[in-house]
């Protein structure tokens, strides 16, 4: 019957979804006219649990909000507490934080690239990008002791130093990655089949992206030059970051932004390893946090906001996290209407959703 609408539940379990999210797609034939999201499948009550734990224990808790950008969660939390307690982090620790942050960005973007390739059936690109990602995982384990959840950030600095030999290993790893990226980049940028699926898919205008409050690569793919690293937290004061922007506003532009950001991250790691000063890696933080603060950090998916309220005891009064995927949900729901059902996975993956982050 032409013109009649049907609703298809997309998720919570779907082959392309790494995490459970449900989208109820209102379809007219094969065309999406509306998308209704349903979240709540991986809610773990982390914000409430953070009020029960000591503020030092919370570092390990907030790292577990997201498996992919775990270090940046700990960084945002520690920076917030350091602001409340007036702790000045030693220079070497600031540089080490940048190195681990950028390694996290690299492995997050490689993971995303694999998932995006998987969403349109390009299995060999999926395999190759995840193979390259293993190099980052290995260097993370060698420098920090863990593959993903590295638990190195503490209040007042970092827990581990990277020795000279390991710094050389880090440089070797980014060299290998750059070589791999030189093979991957032309495939994503120029391949006919990839462009057929990505160009024009899930397009939003710059105004829409701004009005809907999109962050990270979704905003930068619409030409909005906004990257929180520009403001100079950690060692980004010394290492200048220029936001990578594209103007297409579609899935192809978002893919280009992320691939170019990987090159940028490689550059930042090299600069940080070159310029890192010698010295202490942590200062002791005494007392308890009191007052309220908003701490922001640029994650691979965009800007994360931590609101921390302490009352002078070892437990926090309130911890609130606004994660980048939550901010990118509204733009996603604007991208979906009008697209074909077959393009829904590509559009959803193009914002790099992290549902565990969103629900906490």
């Amino acid at each position, binding site marked *: 019957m032409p013109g009649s609408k049907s609703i298809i539940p997309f998720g919570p379990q779907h082959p392309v979804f790494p995490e459970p999210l449900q989208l109820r797609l209102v379809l007219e034939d094969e065309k999406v006219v509306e998308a209704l999201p349903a979240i709540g499948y991986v809610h773990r009550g982390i914000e409430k649990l953070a009020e029960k*734990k000591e503020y030092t*224990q919370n570092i*390990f808790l907030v790292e577990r909000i997201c498996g992919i950008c775990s270090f940046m969660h700990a960084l945002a939390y520690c920076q917030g507490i350091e602001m409340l307690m007036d702790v000045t982090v030693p220079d070497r620790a600031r540089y080490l934080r940048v190195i681990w942050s950028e390694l996290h960005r690299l492995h997050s973007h490689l993971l995303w690239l694999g998932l995006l390739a998987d969403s349109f059936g390009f299995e060999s690109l999926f395999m190759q990008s995840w193979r390259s990602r293993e190099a980052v995982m290995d260097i993370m384990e060698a*420098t920090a*002791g863990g593959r993903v959840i590295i*638990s190195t950030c503490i209040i007042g600095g970092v827990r581990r130093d990277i020795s000279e030999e390991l710094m050389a290993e880090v440089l070797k790893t980014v060299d290998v990655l750059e070589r791999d990226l030189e093979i991957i980049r032309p495939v994503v940028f120029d391949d006919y089949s990839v462009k057929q699926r990505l160009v024009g898919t899930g397009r939003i205008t710059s105004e829409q992206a701004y009005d809907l409050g999109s962050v990270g690569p979704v905003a930068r793919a619409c030409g909005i030059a906004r990257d929180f690293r520009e403001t100079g937290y950690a060692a980004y004061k010394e290492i200048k970051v220029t936001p990578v922007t594209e103007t297409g506003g579609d899935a192809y532009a978002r893919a280009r932004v992320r691939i170019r950001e990987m090159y940028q991250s490689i550059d930042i790691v090299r600069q940080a390893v070159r310029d890192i000063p010698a010295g202490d890696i942590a200062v002791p933080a005494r007392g308890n946090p009191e007052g309220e603060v908003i701490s922001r950090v640029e994650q691979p998916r965009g800007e994360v906001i931590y609101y921390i309220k302490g009352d002078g005891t070892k437990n926090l009064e309130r911890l609130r996290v606004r994660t980048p995927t939550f901010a990118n949900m509204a733009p996603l729901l604007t991208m979906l209407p009008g697209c074909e059902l077959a393009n829904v996975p590509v559009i959803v993956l193009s914002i790099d959703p992290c549902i565990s982050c969103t629900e906490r």
Partner: protein
Amino acid sequence: MVSLLKSVINNVLRKPETRCYPVERRAPFAGSRGHVEMDPSTCTFCGVCARKCPANALTVSKDPRSWTLEPYKCIVCGYCADICPKKSISMNPNHGLPGGI
């Protein structure tokens, strides 16, 4: 066509990227946080580790002297090894089997 041929030859000649686990195992990195180890000869059973453990995985009692690690709760963060006043707790780089120590 030429680049395709190059890829094909490369793929035929290259060793596989994967490892034949468990026959062939990668040696752990020196600083890897594999599992928690405790040396009972130096431990004073002060209980600092149990109070500070983010996952409440440790139970320590002075009388009778006991130190228990619940492997299913432990998140292998290594915080206990950092804060132990006698440095009795250390991280062994070898990964334990899931759920076992």
